[in-house]
């Protein structure tokens, strides 16, 4: 199973040279339940032993071992969260030049997978300082000084939602890649890649009419239409200020077909994708046809320029848009984890576009995060390794 799984890697670039250089999370996109179908398996991790709840994790671990061995010069530390018989355990792997990786069981806890997920979900709230401290003290090694000046990867195979920021590792970015080597390469590329705001196309799903409000939110309670109209007005002003091309629901409506809209997305060098409510990305075109733009629509695209994508969607779940953009060939997807409001999104986007002037994408994200640290903990940046991107002029190739 592991060989055909795609992985997402999460990187966190910390500020300050003494701190860890980078933190990455790996996440399998395989169906979670598959892991439950295989029997428990005892494994050796360095000099220690552990009984995994699912043998499927062993395949992933062995795959990682091979990769880390192949990347023995990459100066990487990798943490993997697995379900052991007693509860969640953290495995630590460290590359060594020309040797197999050093392996240890960094932590063995009695935390159930459900409780781990709940803890991680709570940890994205700005006030949840103590919960983040608990996650760090229970799941990560007490002494992390050995990780300094290394690329540190978080491998979240079972999609628990483990992000560096949830462990009080600030300025967390998430990078996706199929291999560790590519993950490191992408992280490095993002630190030098530039993106002009004028190369970005924003697709903004704030409702501006009564019919759009009901199409987007249905019966769900939300702010009044006038509030959303004000937010959209702010967004339009922001687009003018930064010379960013923008499609509101009105502009999307003026397109003749769904294909025309998808073509606009495909041709973008940078994408801002804001959905007011994930289950209601509904647009009525000028022909009168009502269409839904779904994650599967996005996933079926071929994004010509391997764009950087900023996604802001509802709730802790991104409704599949992040994965869909990665699948379509996005080089990087920066997505919120946790609830964000329209004013926060607008402010953050304004700051990000401003920061893009004269800075790399990674630096612009970092600066934006510092400026809005109170709610920014959950934001995650994914970078996809896509073979197509090596054949194209994407932002990371500059």
């Amino acid at each position, binding site marked *: 199973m592991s060989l055909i799984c795609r992985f997402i890697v999460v990187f966190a670039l910390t500020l300050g040279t003494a701190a860890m250089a980078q933190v990455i999370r790996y996440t399998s996109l395989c169906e979670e339940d598959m892991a439950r179908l295989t029997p428990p398996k005892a494994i050796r991790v360095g000099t220690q032993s552990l009984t995994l709840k699912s043998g499927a994790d062993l395949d992933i671990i062995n795959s990682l071992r091979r990769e880390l061995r192949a990347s023995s010069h990459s100066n990487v530390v990798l943490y993997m969260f697995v379900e052991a018989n007693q*509860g969640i355990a953290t495995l630590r792997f460290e590359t060594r030049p020309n040797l197999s990786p050093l392996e240890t069981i960094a932590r063995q*806890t*009695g*935390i*159930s997978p459900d*409780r*781990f997920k*709940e*803890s991680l*979900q*709570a940890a994205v*709230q*700005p*006030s*949840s*300082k*103590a*919960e983040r*401290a*608990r*996650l760090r003290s*229970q799941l990560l090694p007490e002494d992390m000084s050995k990780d300094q000046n290394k690329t540190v990867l978080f491998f979240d195979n079972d999609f628990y939602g483990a992000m560096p920021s949830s462990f009080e590792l600030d300025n967390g970015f998430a990078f996706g890649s199929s291999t560790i080597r590519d993950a490191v390469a992408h992280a490095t590329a993002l630190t030098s890649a530039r993106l002009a705001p004028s190369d970005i196309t924003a697709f903004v799903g704030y409702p501006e009419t009564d019919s759009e409000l009901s199409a987007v939110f249905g019966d*769900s*309670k*939300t*702010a*009044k239409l006038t*509030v*959303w109209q004000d*937010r959209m007005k702010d967004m339009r002003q922001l687009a003018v200020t930064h010379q960013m091309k923008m499609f509101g629901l009105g502009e999307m409506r003026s397109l003749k077909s769904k294909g025309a809209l998808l073509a606009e997305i495909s041709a973008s060098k940078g994408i801002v994708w*804001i*959905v*007011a*409510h*994930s289950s209601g990305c509904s647009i009525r075109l000028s022909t009168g046809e009502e269409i839904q733009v779904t994650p599967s629509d996005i996933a079926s695209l071929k994004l010509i320029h391997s764009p950087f994508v900023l996604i*802001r*969607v*509802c*709730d802790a779940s991104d409704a599949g848009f992040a994965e869909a953009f990665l699948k379509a060939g996005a080089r990087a997807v920066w997505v919120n984890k*946790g*609830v*964000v*409001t*329209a*004013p926060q*999104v607008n402010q953050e986007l304004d700051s990000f576009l401003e920061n893009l002037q004269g800075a790399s994408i990674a630096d612009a994200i970092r600066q934006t995060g510092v400026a809005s640290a109170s709610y920014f903990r959950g934001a995650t940046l994914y970078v996809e390794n896509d073979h197509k991107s090596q054949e194209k002029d994407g932002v990371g190739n500059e």
Partner: protein
Amino acid sequence: MNENPNISPDVISKLWLATDDELYSIIGANAVPLVIGPASLLDEGRQGEFAYEGSEALGIAFDHPAFKRFAALFFEKWRLQLTDAVCKNSKLADDLKKTTIEKRDIAVGIAIGALTSHIPDLAPFSGLLTALAIFIVKSGTEAFCQTISHKAGDTQ
């Protein structure tokens, strides 16, 4: 609607995943009788203060301005008692620092115990106590005390 307001793992689990704004709204809603008299409540109700117009969050969230104002009022009015019960309570701080993720529900119970023993007047308000305790356990006593200090000034 038939939820038992007393502490239970299900209630804790549900509130544990609430956003900060949602938790403040819940604290405020549960604190209504402690911060506003019935006549003022009637006046505010007639003026539409409690009409919920929905949040500006992407997606669905419960972010109620009037209830959050009541939460701020509660923190302001009960600040001294909360300070005694939480901020000056080194035993509670120590207990919560030792708390592990798997012992979350017990920690919530400890925080409720600290609140009721120091502020017996709050004992009948089990919903309020539960929401406050969850806030305290998630944030830690230090962050909680900074927050109530900040929120108490946010009563307008």
